[in-house]
């Protein structure tokens, strides 16, 4: 039987993690993400899971990687400044291909910024926060129900592709209470990591001969192997100045890029005959949906493109959209970040106009309607 609950977005995220089989959480308290930790602090011990409140965000990210390497599905949750601290070990998990899910409940910034207000100005940090080259999978749910399902999906993608997955939603949806339905176990697909089939003595943790995602053994399963944050060969040991480094980093990118069809998810609303499109994610996507309805009621053919996967960016979809509409409006809670990605993909085929706000309040549907009408 499914369960119907009235939950906060942050709590729905914790429920999604449990549904996906997460039995390990390590974190450090930070507003507005704390309810994810608090919910799991209560639930995890009840099911034999591990909950750790670490000394800082850096340690929490490290513990999550350690827990995952020892075989658990692992989660951490944070916000703005904490997410900055996590970048060091997030990069480690990227290079070493250790699955884990990192929740960033976005607030305003830079620095301590607006701890209790929403923001979307970490969206580029989600993509480019660490040093070095690597792909990123980042999901951006906008509704409490969607936070639940996207958290399950985040774990699935993370395990399947052996990579950290970031779940980025803003303070408003994190703290908003909505009715959600938690499906019965088994109703949603839950995926585990690809396991090696070979005998331990033949196991290579980064063997790419049979595909871009090498099977992953856990520690203590008889497959003794080495993991290092140095660039490494198929056996996991450091390599220097080798063509292997170049090909391996390309492989990391490829394992996400070549699976865009599965990873990139979005909602299209009334775009079939739209003249004006709104590109919006998270809480802005909610305002935009109302704005589109209002504009339609006034006879304006408006539509919404709402990405649930912001990284990899839905490039082909936005390119095709830009060829069909007269302009794209991009409301975002920053002074202009994701708008540049939309412009990049539109390649001048239509004008792209941003609506930016960073004062801790959301962008209203009326603001978006005004911009849809402008210049018509």
């Amino acid at each position: 039987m499914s369960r119907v609950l009235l939950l906060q977005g942050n709590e729905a995220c914790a429920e999604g993690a449990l549904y996906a089989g997460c039995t390990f959480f390590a974190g450090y308290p930070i507003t507005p993400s704390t309810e994810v930790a608090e919910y799991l602090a209560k639930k995890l011990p009840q099911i034999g899971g591990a909950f750790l409140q670490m000394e800082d965000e850096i340690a929490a990210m490290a513990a999550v990687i350690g827990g995952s390497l020892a075989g658990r599905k692992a989660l951490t949750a944070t916000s703005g400044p904490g997410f900055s601290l996590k970048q060091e070990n997030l990069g480690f998990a990227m290079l070493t291909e250790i699955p884990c899910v990192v929740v960033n409940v976005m607030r305003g910034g830079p620095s301590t910024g607006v701890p209790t207000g929403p923001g979307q100005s970490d969206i580029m940090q989600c993509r480019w926060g660490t040093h070095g080259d690597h792909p990123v999978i980042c999901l951006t749910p906008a509704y409490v129900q969607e936070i639940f399902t996207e958290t399950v999906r985040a774990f699935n993608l993370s395990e399947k592709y052996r990579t950290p997955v970031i779940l980025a939603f803003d303070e408003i949806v994190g703290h908003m209470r909505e009715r959600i339905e938690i499906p019965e176990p088994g109703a949603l697909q839950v995926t585990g990591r690809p396991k090696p089939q070979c005998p331990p003595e033949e196991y290579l943790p980064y063997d790419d001969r049979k595909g871009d995602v090498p099977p992953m053994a856990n520690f203590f399963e008889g497959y003794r192997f080495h993991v290092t944050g140095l660039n490494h060969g198929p056996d996991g040991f450091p390599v220097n100045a080798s063509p292997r480094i170049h090909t391996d980093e390309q492989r990391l990118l490829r394992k996400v890029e070549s699976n865009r069809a599965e990873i990139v998810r979005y909602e299209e609303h009334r775009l079939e005959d739209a003249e004006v499109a709104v590109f919006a994610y998270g809480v802005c996507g909610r305002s935009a949906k109302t704005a589109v309805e209002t504009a339609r009621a006034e006879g304006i053919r408006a539509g919404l493109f709402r990405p649930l996967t912001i990284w990899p960016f839905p490039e082909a979809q936005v390119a095709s959209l830009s060829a069909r509409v007269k302009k794209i409006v991009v409301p975002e809670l920053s002074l202009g970040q994701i708008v540049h990605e939309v412009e990049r993909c539109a390649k001048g085929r239509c004008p792209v106009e941003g609506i930016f706000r960073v004062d801790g309040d959301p962008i209203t549907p009326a603001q978006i309607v005004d911009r849809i009408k402008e210049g018509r």
Partner: protein
Amino acid sequence: MAFDYGRYIRPGKLPHIWCPGCSYGMVFKALLRAVDSQKIDRNDIALVSGIGCASRLPGYVDFNTLHTTHGRALAFATGIKMAKPDKHVMVVSGDGDATAIGGNHFIHACRRNIDITLLVFNNFIYGMTGGQYSPTTQTDRFATTMPYGNVDSPFNIPELAKGAGASFVARGTAYHAAALDKLIIEAMRHKGFSVLEIINACPTTFGRRNKFRSPTDMLLWMKDTFVPEEAFRKLPPEKTEGKLPMGILYRREDAKEYCETYYSLVERLRKQT
């Protein structure tokens, strides 16, 4: 029969990166002898490290091994131990790794009293980056970033560990290798967080700037400076000048181990439901 180190070394991973005259090889051998004597299945051991010369050690040994980011080894190890509390988790770390960038993780692992064995390879210097001073470099010693003599005060690692709540604190040296085997064994057997500081020689970046003419001089300095704890306590105050105790310096068996406490809570909750 001579001890067969080859059984534990990963094929093809030697020679190691350590410089001629470095004492890490001696400590590495002591570690292998100690682990061997405990008859633990190597599949059940995870050896974790951060960044620095000592942190390359796990690459050479055939356990589950993890070479992490600078200073963070204990945080990674804490995750592993919490995920699999019945396995042995050991950490090797340098003085900079453990007490500078990793200082916060160090004191909190002590406070938490999680059952991890930490070996701090203290050579008083940042070796891999070429000889910058560390939090354990003695005052007035020379380093590339203290070219006029160190003006900082050093940490005393055992005192720091004890103050932060570690339940097993010991000190050994590379020179006193036989005694070191026993200390590593005691540290491994202890249920709780064990800190073992191991005094080491870095002739390349520390010794040659600090009037140690050869690697042997550094070992002889260890011989003269470190006194077994029991003998140290009996020395009159005027004779302790320039000396430091070694051996098991502090041990508390009654302290609650972290994973045990956590999972007994789990058991209690499960019985209630």
